[in-house]
């Protein structure tokens, strides 16, 4: 029987792709391992190889087709003994495609279920500090981060980028796309896999007055470099009596991606927030990613800039303002409301905003605050809001013990105790290393349902 070749998933986050080019034609004999086609995903253009030997019976999807869904048949392969007559009667590439027996949702359904951020800024957003009449362009977080680095590198020759795969490969997550071409290898530097070493070198260069941007492929690998981030970068200004600062940015993907397991799915927001001498920023939207990264690069202090892989491909409206910056240490009110204050940051905002939408349908009006910066933290904005709503729920993906939410609860208890009508609830990731299994991973992460439940609890509904 002929075999259907299905559109492959080529990355952890891929749902569909473009079939850019066929490298085989109908009637060609192919062997396993031979490249059949080039497929473009959200991250890269990749080659797709044959698994079985046989002859290409039919190409079902024309080259150049966009939006081909994962698992959609794209070609028919005839095995030994098949004839063109078998074209009608096909089986999928493997018969293994059975859903799991337990767990209510099969692995496959996973992907489409991932909640989506609003494609553009909703009308509700309370935009601060943006002049009336400003126009906006839809940009992804990925593009905005790149734009911010490019603009700052044009502004000052002392700004440079170093990290693993940032130059020739264009970034493991394609954040530094095009930078090597524009700025050359002196300023866009590929390093060996030696986080502790190159972070130390960058810190030394910052002591000497340069402005390094250090990209960690993900912040999981910054653990290798922790000593330089904390002991060298954060503390030297103080230890030198103010003589020697460290104007450096440490940036990269932080927190859980999708199905990459315990060692690659850790949110370090609370860790870095604990350290005096560091500034810590964790944007949600593309506009904030851009404006905050530009501020971070200009800041005379070490700034830990926490990004999120899942947000990289999301689009938001970015203001068409020349040299657009967002101040570090200022929260943003995404949506105003009267009944409860939901405080979040980074990807947590996705759950916070979704919960607010759902709560609105039930007549509960939530004010949603995006902290954007964790250190310094804009507690003033939180307190002001809680004095109005008298209730607060915090949302983050990190672990529950000694979390950012714990800190906010403590601040509210000390500075707004008399205004609270209910205990503050912290919605967080679960107190477990991130499991790989799809069903357990879903349980380990914070969910919109949990946020909705928490709001109902604090509003006694």
């Amino acid at each position, binding site marked *: 029987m002929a075999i259907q070749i299905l559109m492959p998933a*080529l990355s*952890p986050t891929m749902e569909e792709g473009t079939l850019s080019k066929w490298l085989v034609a109908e009637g060609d004999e192919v062997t396993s391992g031979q490249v059949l086609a080039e497929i473009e995903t959200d991250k890269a253009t990749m080659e797709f190889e044959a698994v079985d030997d046989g002859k290409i019976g039919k190409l079902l999807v024309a080259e150049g087709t966009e939006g081909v869904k994962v698992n959609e048949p794209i070609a028919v392969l005839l095995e030994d003994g098949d004839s063109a007559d078998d074209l009608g009667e096909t089986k999928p590439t493997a018969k293994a495609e059975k859903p799991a027996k337990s767990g209510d949702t099969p692995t496959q359904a996973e992907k489409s279920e991932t909640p989506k951020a609003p494609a553009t800024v909703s009308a509700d957003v309370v935009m601060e500090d943006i002049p009336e009449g400003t126009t906006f362009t839809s940009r992804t977080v990925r593009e905005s981060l790149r734009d911010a680095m490019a603009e700052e590198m044009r502004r000052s020759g002392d700004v440079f980028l170093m990290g693993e795969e940032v130059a020739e490969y264009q970034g493991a997550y394609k954040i530094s796309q095009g930078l090597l071409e524009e700025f050359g290898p002196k300023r866009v530097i590929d390093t060996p*896999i030696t986080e502790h070493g190159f972070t130390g070198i960058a810190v030394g260069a910052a002591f000497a007055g340069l402005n390094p941007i250090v990209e960690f492929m993900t912040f999981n690998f910054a653990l290798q470099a922790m000593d330089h981030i904390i002991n060298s970068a954060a503390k030297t200004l103080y230890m030198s009596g103010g003589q020697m600062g460290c104007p450096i940015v440490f940036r990269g993907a932080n927190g859980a991606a999708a*199905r*990459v397991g315990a060692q690659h799915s850790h949110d370090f927001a609370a860790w870095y927030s604990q350290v005096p001498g560091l500034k810590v920023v964790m944007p949600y939207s593309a506009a904030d990613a851009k404006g905050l990264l530009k501020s971070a690069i200009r800041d005379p202090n070490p700034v830990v800039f926490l990004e999120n892989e899942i947000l990289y491909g999301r689009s938001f409206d970015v203001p068409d303002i020349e040299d657009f910056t967002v101040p570090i240490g200022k929260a943003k009110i995404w949506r105003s409301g009267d009944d409860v204050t939901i405080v979040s940051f980074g990807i947590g905002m996705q759950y916070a905003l979704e919960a607010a939408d759902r709560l609105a349908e039930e007549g509960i009006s939530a004010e949603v605050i995006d902290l954007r910066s964790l250190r310094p933290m804009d507690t003033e904005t939180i307190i002001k809001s809680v004095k109005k709503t008298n209730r607060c729920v915090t949302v983050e993906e990190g672990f529950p013990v000694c979390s950012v939410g714990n800190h906010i609860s403590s601040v509210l208890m000390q500075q707004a105790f008399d205004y609270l009508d209910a205990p503050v609830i912290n919605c967080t990731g679960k107190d477990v290393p991130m*499991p790989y299994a799809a069903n357990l991973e879903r349980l380990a992460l914070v969910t919109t349902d949990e946020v909705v439940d928490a709001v109902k609890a604090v509003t006694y509904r």
Partner: protein
Amino acid sequence: MAAARKTKKSNISGEELKEHYRSMLLIRRFEEKAGQLYGMGLIGGFCHLYIGQEAVVVGLEASAKEGDQRVTSYRDHGHMLACGMDPKGVMAELTGREGGYSRGKGGSMHMFSAEKNFFGGHGIVAAQVPIGAGLGFANMYRGNDNVSFAYFGDGAANQGQVYETFNMASLWKIPVIFVIENNQYAMGTSMKRSSSTPDFYHRGAAFNIPGQAVDGMDVLAVKAAGEEAVKHCRSGKGPYILEMLTYRYRGHSMSDPAKYRTREEVQKIRQEKDPIDHVRDLLIEGKYATADDLKALDKEVKNIVSEAAEFAADSPEPAIEELYTDIYA
């Protein structure tokens, strides 16, 4: 310093040769199937295939004995199959199911088998190097003559902890074999762009650790070098470095745009250096096996892999209670 390029081959029987052929083929077919299941969405996250490098683990496992330990990186499926772990359990871990070696909680990069002395499966580049030396330390401490194998890549070979480990391993004469699987690339970085000196087997010289570069596409050369290294370690002379010159045919993980090398480069190695074709030729030329024998073997291996894939797809997801188990002993 005894750092030299050698290709001494061990004497080997037809039966043994056939066994190596089968082991390598099992890894190859298993990995092809894993790639396919990934494409179908049954495997998620990262999935690093070992295709092209099969001779390294198969040759070295042939020089190991009961009680020896091994530890490696995230590119670990081949190591697990070669040390005798069950393909079903490995594949079911890749799909994140209850039947997997870590009951679905570890995934492709984080798998272990206490029974087979396989200590992972590590997602952090080079973390397994001092851990491998620690396994050797335990052998030394207990006074047995077991050795440990610490496998790592050419990219990992630049991490600082490798050299901290070299120093202590030599200082304390730890029986550990450092196996550098030099497949020439660390993700998209060719070794030439990341390493100030190209000969990794020399890198123990400053610490007085002997090293050899070995044709890692030739299972017999690997086995011979492995035997020498093992003898050195078992006799209490301390660590040994084996640089395996090898090649990965597939992308780094599943999403790899492969712009850093040409298709011709990959094709050339596949055609001229393939470790499995090499042994197939030896078997036929030496009249150890007929084409039909090999076809039967192929079929047997394919069946094992199909069964593993079926098991991995049918095995249920872990019970939700598993979320909170195994955090503390």
